[in-house]
């Protein structure tokens, strides 16, 4: 009796849709595999040109370079997952780095004390960002663009043109960067630990899953009763803490700290995060991906140096990579969306 014009999909159509679900999960995991493949490709190409590249000590160098950026990338990932961004990470790292260095120079609190203060400072700076975004509802771009300069300015104020040099810093502190745990440099272990803990928490804790929910569908998150404001605030605090940790380790790694430390770090971190497959609109992406992205970028940086290519290309490459990664992701997503509308409906 009824005139249902467009009828049930055949079994093959159902299978196509079934395959689509699987494909999407694959693509997500593919991202990390993809980065690894590109990484291997880069390593292969460069090694052919310059065999010196392929050595344990060189790889160690790369990972050491990456370690601090990776730590910051973990924090940035947490923020980006909620559909926000933190442009002030570079300034937070710099401010904490100088403050810690200064404290160590005066040696008022001892090494553990200085490190603790540094981390707390990072936490506080992140909390201020969180207040601006979650409570005062200032859009994250504006808020963190502002704090990028406010924190850097405070850094200059505190530094007063001076710098903290290696001679000013206690031996044990400097030793952190050169020491190793079971043969692996401490910094790399620290970064790996932080990344793994964060990855675990994001994957398995209730709060972690709720962060993804907020980025995936903010309106639905509210309906389901997720405390979005509190969680966004928390994400910025975590980002600040990560920046704080990186800042605390900065002096040890580089030996000297001035007010310009970590300038421009935010761009490197965002590039790493974006390359690592973290969706700039929030809701998807992993810390491991971000770290792999950071490793890839650091490898390219190292390769440029080894091949005696101008290091001045680095910033341009970071920029181009941000554009390419975001563009490609949008293209892929659009492609799937179009397929879905055609098979999912009539």
């Amino acid at each position: 009796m009824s005139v249902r014009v467009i009828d049930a999909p055949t079994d093959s159509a159902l299978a196509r849709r079934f395959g689509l679900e699987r494909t999407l999960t694959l693509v997500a995991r593919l991202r990390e595999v993809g980065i690894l493949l590109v990484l291997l490709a880069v390593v292969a190409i460069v090694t052919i040109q310059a065999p010196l590249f392929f050595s344990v000590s060189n790889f160690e160098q790369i990972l050491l370079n990456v370690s601090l950026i990776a730590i910051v990338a973990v924090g940035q990932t947490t923020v980006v997952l909620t559909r926000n961004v933190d442009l002030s990470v570079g300034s937070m790292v710099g401010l904490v780095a100088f403050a810690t260095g200064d404290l160590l120079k005066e040696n008022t609190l001892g090494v553990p004390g200085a490190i603790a203060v540094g981390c707390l400072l990072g936490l506080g700076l992140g909390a201020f960002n969180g207040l601006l975004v979650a409570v005062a509802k200032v859009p994250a771009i504006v808020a963190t663009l502002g704090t990028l300069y406010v924190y850097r300015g405070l850094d200059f104020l505190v530094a007063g043109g001076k710098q903290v040099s290696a001679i000013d810093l206690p031996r044990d502190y400097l030793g952190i960067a050169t020491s190793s745990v079971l043969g692996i440099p401490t910094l790399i272990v620290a970064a790996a630990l932080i990344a793994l803990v964060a990855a675990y928490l994001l994957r398995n804790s209730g709060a972690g899953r709720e962060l993804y929910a907020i980025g995936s569908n903010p309106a639905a998150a509210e309906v389901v009763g997720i405390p979005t404001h509190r969680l966004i605030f928390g994400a910025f605090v975590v980002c600040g803490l990560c920046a704080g940790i990186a800042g605390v380790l900065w002096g040890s790694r580089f030996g000297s700290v001035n007010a310009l430390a970590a300038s421009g770090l935010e761009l490197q971190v965002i590039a790493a995060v974006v390359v690592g497959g973290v969706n700039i609109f929030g809701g998807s992406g992993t810390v491991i991906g971000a770290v792999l992205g950071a490793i890839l970028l650091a490898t390219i940086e190292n390769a440029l140096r080894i091949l005696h290519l101008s290091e001045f290309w680095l910033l341009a490459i970071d920029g181009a990579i941000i554009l390419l990664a975001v563009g490609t992701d949008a293209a892929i997503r659009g492609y799937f969306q179009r397929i879905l509308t055609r098979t999912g409906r009539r």
Partner: protein
Amino acid sequence: MRVRVLGLIRRWETLLVVLLIAFVVLGSSLSPYFLSASNFSDLTSNLMEKAIMALPLALVIIAGEIDLSVESMLGLASALLGFTYALGWPLWLDIPLVLVVGAMGGLLNGVLVTRAGLPSLVVTLGTLALYRGLASVVLGPRSVSGWPEWFTNFGFAYVPGTLIPWPLLVFATLALAFLFVLHRTWIGRQIYAMGKNKQAARYSGIDVAKLKTYLFILSGVLSALAGVILTARFSSARADNGQGFVLDVVTSVLLGGVNIFGGEGTIVGVVLAIFVIGVLRNGLTLADVSPDTQSVAVGALLILSVAGPTLVRRISAAWPRRQLTSPVSNS
């Protein structure tokens, strides 16, 4: 459009004038040199490149987008200018070339935002890095000097017989042009419409993509122009010229009353805000505060200019009001 909003704008611009006066008073109390003609002239000179970049940025933000790459385009323009000049190419060729590159940079931004549909925040963050990076590639750490006198005069000398620096003349002309376009022409009307309601604008036959792309191109060209002027003023082309400018430029626009979400703002407000920041910086410089530390104040202004109205709006929303619900409404 003028109706309800006019009242509010008047209030915001008055606030800016008050702020301006307050900072002038503050400045004069910090230093005896503050209220001198030569100081004001100095103050203005330092401001002009940022001021010139703020004008198109205001239009971009009113249209509902943002352009963070302005300072890097300035740097790229400066670097290219220096590079080509050092090669021996004549300036009458270099300068237009640099402006064309500015247009192309803006075009890239525009295409990525309108055709690829990428958010302008991320795109211009990427080009902020890309253009500055290209500037480094072009010129490296070098600086190029040895410019002809007419060129450097254009940068820092005055119009003969007056205390008006040439760049101020350029800025004033541009400001008047922007004032005209935004507030009197149909182009301005379309920009406001896009910013207030992109869908309705599209459904009214406005080519949103084309207009936005033109605005980005304009931003690119004027950033390049600012790069030329800065190079002339410093008598030095460097890849890192203009580093950090984006703060002042964005703050001028937002402090000037332009709504970060689009659809609202005036040129008068932006110009006032430019000078508010200029006076603030000048005052602080005279008080021996380093430019980098001054950024704390400017950054705070940026945050307050957005946080302030939002908090005010929330307070006034909490006031008991008659609720009008409608099935066609979207609130």
